[in-house]
């Protein structure tokens, strides 16, 4: 039974991988963007340090921190856009009509895309951060960052699925995503570790999944981790359960509220 289900949903991952291989330009674009971002910020942190301005952490550590947060962010495929487009085009009628769970199939396709992006962007992060800083964090730190980063990117994919389902009502989810993204940049500590932020932002951040997605996994490359690995693992499990429940609840409501364009 379980093997049959795994085979079934693995097919969605496989076809998403095949599709991603045909659309390599998008991935190459992300690689270039990633390298440029790391180059700009490594120059910025170096310039700040050389100007004698106070930097709360070693500029090289900050570049590695940013390499990890951007790796997670860019690896998570924006499946909410694909869901929105399928609803707008009306192709969702085919996806809802198959003998599979719609949300698991979409998530499996997202994981397929993640499986293509994460290694390529991980290698980009490693090479660029090394080139810009001239050093590599301890292997033990990287060994922790990799699995937690992948788990965080998978959770982010599930959260994008949740946002995508809102398109059943809204048709256009870009305003929701825009707000979500800005919150993630700030409360997730995309550019800087969260402990450099004012206290009230840190207190607000712990109530959201954003630190678990970005700051916590990335902080392992700093000398002081934000949370111990065990606590982060527990937080990831808790937020994954909350997300799964949320997705399931919103999908049930979405299908009962469904109207499909063009009859």
């Amino acid at each position, binding site marked *: 039974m379980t093997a049959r289900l795994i085979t079934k949903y693995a097919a969605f991952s496989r076809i998403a991988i095949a599709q991603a291989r045909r659309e390599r330009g998008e991935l190459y674009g992300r690689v270039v963007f990633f390298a440029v971002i790391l180059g700009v910020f490594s120059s910025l942190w170096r310039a700040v340090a050389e100007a004698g301005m106070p930097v709360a952490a070693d500029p090289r550590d900050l570049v590695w921190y940013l390499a990890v947060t951007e790796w997670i962010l860019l690896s998570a495929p924006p499946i909410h856009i694909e869901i929105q487009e399928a609803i707008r085009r009306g192709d969702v009628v085919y*996806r*809802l009509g198959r003998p599979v769970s719609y949300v698991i199939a979409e998530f499996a396709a997202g994981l397929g895309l993640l499986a293509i992006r994460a290694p390529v962007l991980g290698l980009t992060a490693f090479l660029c951060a090394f080139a810009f800083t001239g050093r590599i964090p301890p292997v033990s730190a990287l060994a922790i960052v990799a699995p937690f980063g992948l788990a965080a990117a998978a959770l982010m994919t599930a959260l994008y699925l949740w946002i995508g389902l809102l398109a059943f009502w809204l048709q256009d989810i870009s305003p929701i995503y825009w707000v979500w993204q800005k919150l993630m940049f700030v409360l997730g500590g995309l550019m800087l570790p969260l402990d450099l932020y004012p206290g009230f932002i840190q207190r607000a951040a712990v109530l959201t999944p954003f630190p678990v997605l970005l700051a916590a996994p990335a902080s392992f490359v700093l000398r002081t981790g934000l949370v111990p690995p065990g606590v982060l693992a527990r937080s990831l499990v808790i937020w994954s359960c909350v997300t799964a429940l949320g997705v399931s609840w919103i999908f049930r409501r979405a299908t009962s509220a469904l109207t*499909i364009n063009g009859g």
Partner: protein
Amino acid sequence: MYSAVPAVELNQLSKSFRVRRAATTGLAARARDAFRPRTQTVVAVDRLSFSIAPGERVAFIGPNGAGKSTTLKILAGILRPDAGRVHVLGLVPAQDRRRLAFEIGTVFGQRSQLWYQLPPRDTFELLGRAYEIDRREHRRRIEALVSVFELGPLIDTPVRHLSLGERMRCEIAASLLHSPRMLFLDEPTIGLDVSAKAVIRELLWTESERERVTLLLTSHDTGDMERVCTRAIVIHGGRLLWDGPIDALRRGYLKAKRVTLWSEAEHLDLTLPGVRVLSSRSYRTDLDIALEVTPLGRVVDAALRQSAIRDMAIEDAPLDDVIRAVYADAERRSATS
């Protein structure tokens, strides 16, 4: 041998949607609309009842907004009805959607289930896993469909390189991969040229005959229903208007032809009983001919007496005219009763 259980059974099915009303003018009204949008209820299906026996090929017709697509989506388990009873192959679609999905196929002419960047074979493989088809059986089925639908050179071509007609053949083949007992088709020939339409109609007819698949087909093209189906159900405003054999519909309502003549003479004078000139431009005349009043041959003879004819096109009367005639007839009958 057909099962005694109807393939489709609808009893007093109703479905309505709440739609947002267009924004009013004026800043205050718009601000109010943004926070408390005004909605109105649109009745898509209104106490609709009919049943379809296994193996039947039924045309489900009506003008835009008649409720055809909504009914099809309810039958496929995608939309939930507000009221009434629905059974498809003995299952309740809204409750047994996944079980029903193994038994039915759907084709939506304006949508696609094929992955755009990939060849159809990749989607076929995905569907094989999704429908839990045994791998050997799946390969055999693909080979059979490739042969029947002549997909040989297409199956390994990325979908984005296929013409609309080729894509539609692949879409229909994809819907038949799991050997469904019932096929719902929503405008399967929309946008296709004449020859592609003929191919699709022929394929649907032969596949339905060969595999004993029950068909329920919506279309705006009277040719689709005439060449594929044996029975027609006409709805209007979500309500049943007419239900009977296609032959009866043809005899009763498909009595007109649209004819375009391109002549050597600049203008033709075709004042004959039952012939209405729709437009007369230089060297081109568009006619609406009531065949039971004047046969087509007499009109052509009359035209040839005036001028050599360079070309001629004959079309069935638009579906809207047929619907109007059915609708007028239904009104007349209800008035007299």
